Each structure stands twice: as C-alpha cells, then as structure tokens.
C-alpha cells in the first residue's frame, strides 16, 4: 500500500460520520418523566435561524450559523468553528403525534423540550 495509506484510510473512516455537507451540532439528551430534553450546542446561532421539525420519532434540528467578522481589516488565521448550514437528526423513542415543543436559548445552548400532551 502506498505511504499515505494511513492518512487516506483514517480520512476514510471520518467520511462515514459526516457524509453530508451540513455540519452537526453536538447534543446532550435527557429523559424526562413525560418526554425528552435535548440540549444542543448552538452558540452564535440566533433563534430565527433554527428550524425544528418532528417527523414521526425523528427530531430534525436544522439551521444556519452565520459568520461575522469581529473587526474590520482582520486576517483570519484559524477556523475551527463550523459555519453555514447545520442539520442534526435525533431519534426519540415514543409517540409524538401530539406533543408540545418548547425551545429556550441559554448562554449559547439551545434547550428543546418535547413533552407529551397530558390528559389527551
């Protein structure tokens, strides 16, 4: 195998995780007595730019992180934060035909509560 085999193959395995051009924000998931709490790392994203979509048992969080240059005339030397379109699909066991979704932004974290409608 050629010398750069290691690089190529490790790159390869990476391809599986991110096969889509949109980036995936990290998420913590908590079980609530009546539903789920999904905490997502979405710093720098405004609430207007996020769309939530619940299709069956799949919660799809998508949106866009807009980049901004802090100071005029600056020259960027490193970029690690992912910008642009993001999309994250999370499977949540349960029947969510009738559910309420609450969202709340707290210091760069987006908290999404998916709760069963009680008494229906």
């Amino acid at each position, binding site marked *: 195998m050629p010398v750069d085999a290691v690089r190529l*193959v490790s790159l390869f395995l990476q391809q599986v995780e991110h096969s889509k*051009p949109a980036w995936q924000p990290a998420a913590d998931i908590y079980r609530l007595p009546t539903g789920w709490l999904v905490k997502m790392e979405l710093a720098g994203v405004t609430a207007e730019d996020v769309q939530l979509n619940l299709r069956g048992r799949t919660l799809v969080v998508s949106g866009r992180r807009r980049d901004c240059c802090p100071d005029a005339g600056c020259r960027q030397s*490193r970029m690690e934060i992912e910008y642009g379109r993001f999309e994250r699909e999370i499977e949540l066991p349960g029947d969510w035909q009738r559910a309420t979704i609450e969202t709340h932004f707290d210091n760069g974290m987006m908290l999404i509560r998916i709760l069963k409608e009680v008494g229906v």
Partner: protein
Amino acid sequence: MSEPTPIPSNVSLPVLPLKNTVLFPTLFLPLGVGRDNSVAAVEAAVATEEKIILVVAQRNADDDRLDADALFSVGTRAVIKKMNRSDDAVEVMVQGIERVRIVRIDQVEPHLRAVVDSFPLPTDESPEIEALQREVLDAAARVVELAQPPQGPAAIMQMLSGTADPLRLTFLLGSMLSLDVAKEQALLEAPTRLAALQRIHEYLTHEAQILELKQQIASKAQGEMTREQRQYFLRQQMRAIQDELGERSPEGAEADVLREKLAAADLPEAVRVESDRELTRLERLPSQAPDYQVTRTWLELIAELPWKNSSDDVLDIERTQTILDEDHYGLTDVKERILEHLAVLKLNPKAKAPILCFVGPPGVGKTSLGHSIARSMSRKFERLSLGGMHDESELRGHRRTYIGAMPGRIIQAVRRAGVNNPMILLDEVDKLGRDFRGDPSAALLEVLDPAQNSTFRDNYLDLPFDLSKVFFVATANALDPLPRPLLDRLEIIRLSGYSEDEKLQIAKRYLIPRQRAESGLTVEQSDIPEKTIVALIRGYTREAGCRQLERTIGQVMRKLALRVARGSESRIAVSEELLVDLLGPEHFVPEDARREMPPGVATGMAWTEAGGEVLYIEAMQVPGSGELRITGQLGNIMQESARAAQSYVASHAGQLGIDRDKFKEGGVHIHVPAGAVPKDGPSAGVALVTALASLFTGRPARADTAMTGEITLTGLVLPIGGVKEKILGARRAGIKRIILPKANAKDIRDLPASVREDTKVIFAEKINDVLAAALEDGRA
C-alpha cells in the same frame, strides 16, 4: 445525498486549484495550500459566510500558469470546514458539496474566481448498476485484503458495504486508490452511474493485479533468503551496531584495511575482478572459518605483489663496468657478456632478459657476481637457494585448498623485491632434489622459458603473473646433474678457478682488507707483503676458488689481533717465517709434484668440481699371468681407457723400442691414487700410455710435465674439456710444462696472460708426440 443549496447564478466563487488530486462531492479532503493565489482564494472564501470555494484539479501538476485552459472544466463546489494558518502554508479541510461546471473565469488576480453552472451527478438506475456495484465491492475487498491497511480490512469493508449510493462508493474508492488525476477526474465527470462504476471496477482490478504481483515478488524474495543470507544480514546489522558503538569487529577492520590496500595497489583488471570477489567472500566469512585465513593471506599477497611496479634500469655501460671491476678481479669474459646484455637492453628496452647460468667450482664468486650485476643495473636482488629443494610445490606454491598453503618461492621472492623486474639468483641449481613429491626442475622449465614465463601461474596465486622482466641468474658447480631441457634454456657462462696471480690480486684487493676490518686491525698492525701472500696461497690453500684463502687470511688476522691486544707488538709485518709461526707448518707442499719419478709413473691432469688437480698414474709389472689389474676406483670409461693404452703400447712395442719379451714377464697393475676418490673420464688416456711406455722402456717420465688427452687405438690424441682448470691445477702443483691435445690449442686463450707466459705448452696430435715430450732420454 442531501440536496445542495441552489447555486446563485452569476455569482463567482473563489477557485482553489489542486495538483495531483480531485475532490469528490460529499468527501472530506485535507489540503495544504501554499501558492499565494490559492491562499488568497481560501482567505476570500473564509471571509464569506458560506465559506464556499470551488475546488478544481489542474491538468498538469507542474503548471503554475493558471487560466481556463490549465484547469479541468468540471470541479467541485466545496465548503471549507476548518482552516489553520501556519508560518508558510495554510491547512484547510474541505468537504465537497456538488459537481459543477465552470462557465467562465472572471478574475485571475489576486486569486482565481469562476462563475459556475450546476452539473448534477447522474441518477440513472438499472439492475446492471446494482450488479456492478456488488462486483465493485468484491474487487475492493480483494484490494483491501492485499493492501493490509493498519486499521484492518474489516473496518474498511464494513464502511464500504454500508455505502448504498453507487456514486459515493465510487468516490470513496477513487480517493482510496492512488490513482492519477486524469483517472480521478474521469470518475468525477462520469456521465452515468454505470460508467462511474465501470471505471472504478477497472481501476480496482488493475490495482488488485499489481498488489498480487507485488506480494508474489515479496514472498518469493523471502523464500529465496536462505539461512546463509539471513546470517549475512544479521552480521551486517551487527556491523552497523558495532560501527555505531565504535567497536569495529577485528575481521571487519581487517577487511577494510585490505580493501584500502587493494584500492591503493595498481592491479590489472583481471586481478581486480578476482580480488573483489574474494574480498566480498571474506566479509561474509566468520573469522573462525578455516577459509578465512587462507583468503585473507591470499588477498594480502595480491595487494603486495608488484603487478605493474618496476624499478628503472640504470643502463650506463661505463658505470656497470666500474662496479663489476670494483667487485671482482678478472672474469673478463663474464663481465663482457653482462655488458653485452646491458647494451642490448639499452638499444631495445623490450628485449627479453637472458637467463644466465654461472658454472664453476665453489668459491669463485658466482653468487657475489650475481650480486654485483644487480647492483650495477640498479635492480633489486633476490637469492633463492635451490640446494636440497625436492618439492615442486615449494617453487610453484600449494593450491589454496590446503590449509597453510603458501605461494611458491619465486612469487615470494618477487613479493619481497617489491618490483616485477628484480634479479633473481637461483643458487645451486644443480643441487635440486627429485623424488616422489615432484620434480622441481620441471617447474623451473616454465619459470625460465622467456616464451612461457610472461604468464607464470603459481598454484597458490592462481592468476597469471608476468615474470618475463625478471633477470634470472642460476649458479651451478656442475652441469651434469641438470636435465637437458633445463640446460637448454640457460646461457652457460663458465667461471673456472683463479690462477695464483689472480688469487694474489684478489687477496690484496678484497680479502685482506675485508679480514683486516673484521678483526679490527690497522694496516700498520697487519702488513702482509706480496711474498707472504704467495706463500700463503701455495702452502696453506689448495682450491679453485678463494674461500680457503680467505679463511686462512682471517686466521692470520686473528692471530695478529691477539698479539696486538696483548700489547706486545704494535707494528707487524708478516714475513714468511712469521707465517709458519702463526699457522704452523705448510699444509700443502708445492712439491706435491713429485720430484723423482721412477719409470712407470706419469703425471695426468684431472678436472674436479673444486677445480683442476694433478693425478699420478702408477704402473708396475707384477709376476704372474698377463692380466691387467686396475685399482684406484676408476670408472668404466677410465678402465677402458687403460685397456686401450695397454693395447696400444703392446702393439707398438717395436716402434717404442720395447723388448717384446718384457710383456711375458707378468701382468701389469695400474693404480691411480688417491685410492679413496672415484675417478672417471677419457682424458687420462695419454697419461696411461705414457706410464705404460715408461714402465716398459725403463725411461722415466719427466717430473715437470703434466699431460691430458684422450687416445685412440690408432694413436691419435683427441681433445678434452676443462683445459683452464687443469692447467691452473697443474700450476698449483708446481708444474709448468703441459702436454695438451692439438685440438685444445684454442682453449689456451682462456688462461690469464701471466699464466700463459710462464707455462710451456706442448701440443700433441699423435701419441708419439706425447711420448717424445714426456719421457726422459732412455740413456739415463
């Protein structure tokens, strides 16, 4: 695949040109960006919110001119995921989004910008695609199996088979294989999924074949690595480690030293090839191997032999003459022959060296003459004593298969000399032995043949060595023991004994000064006048050469030294009387020549290896039957000679004035003293006749006359050899009147002038002449 965001028309994108690779949609690719234009493009892309950049492969990696023609027209719209700027380059991680076609380039500086149009990936479907996809997976499995990636084939295969989309599978495999840009670009531009799969299948099959072949070669090479090679590799590693530690193994150091020596030696090409081979072998041998020492000593010999190195001859005739005269008195013939050879060499430097053979009695200076020839020509001198050598391999070496094998003496001598044109003195060539181990004289035949010795092959050396420039000189006391073919190759130069006068000169010039210096005396303390030297030569020595004379002079010097050391005397002139005091009475009486000769005794002359001698032949009549009795250890030829003499005398009795009745008085007894020394040869014929004639006529033979010559029954006197030695021998015995066969008259020229003047030589053609000259008058 997710649906890419639509491309805003008429908006140009910064362009990142790629060398050597292609970015496929959906795949990640880390890139190092170095070119200023590209860095500017990345910066421009990063500055936008979308971080979108167009990644296009260059048609030619070496091309720095970037315009529409230099790039492929199909590229990948990509997003920069990460970026890091280091001192001299920018690293970016890009992810392909979709395939696009470049519509136009609308900016070149500071970076390229291009307007693109969407060029969606094909979406054709057919069962054929499905079948081919499986086939591609199989081929990929084979490649992955053969390539043995560090992550293990299973992880990769799991990922590949989990990829449902045929184009994504194609792109994954395309980036995995080390394909060239054109092939990768062909995958990107594939018009249909089927075409893409067909192409990647072809590449995979090709790759699988190459990998299989590679593995075959590797396993074959491994199989061929025998135990010996393994040892060699281990040893090489050990050497490398020892080098690193500064502990070079002794054998490694030896091989290195040898390599240097061989490199420094000026070897002919054939020898160089052979020695290189042996040197490589040596390096692979452990030093304990028996072969190791053999090979090492052989290589040392190769390095030291003067293959091309020769000394320059000094061909100055005058100088040579001076040196020869300084070292040796007399020997004019020999010196002249050497000068002749030198003259030839001077006119024709390529002339083959002659092979001279000095023949003469011991002590006449054969060996030292060789020495001074070498000195006069400025050649290196090597002496090989062949006396008692009986093993052929001592001359030509042992084959290297034997442990302890050595090169022969000839090659050793050349090695010692350090030049390929030394003078080699083959001393005592007549004393070569010969037994079941071989005949060394046969080996000498090759060495001494100018036609053959340019490619002399020593058994040990096993390479041809050129001996043709070597000046060979052999010495011998007698030629009889030499085989004919060997004799044939030698140019014989005879050195006969020295006359008394020559000895006197030699003593005065060389022996006395040498012995005087040896015993630490001055000229005043040890003055030996000429008269004393003559007395010394006459009374205390009897030899052809000068060894005994030198010893005796040494004896005198030591006795003088004792006197001087005791302090009794400081100036001593050695008179003849003192000589008797020092050495005792004379050992040899010059009057060895008998003063009184009764009838029946005649003086003959003999030639021995030690020079000439006088020989008395005694004949006596004994009562009894008429038989001839011969004593004195005479050989067959001499006995026959005696019978011939008797027959001649008996048949010519009347003519000789002999009473025929005399023969009836009894038999004749002939005796030749000394009885213990065997004698042979025909040359005593005339002396035998003279003795018998004297016996029967009663006329004694003259005491001052010696004679030599072969006789025939008809009374002729035939020539004989060794005239000079015989005459000098007779002179030593005090005889100055010689009867020689007429045919030997020419040999008189060999005598020193002083001897010639002082000796009366009578030439005889017939026995009558001899008898007339030899017998006293009958009236006495």
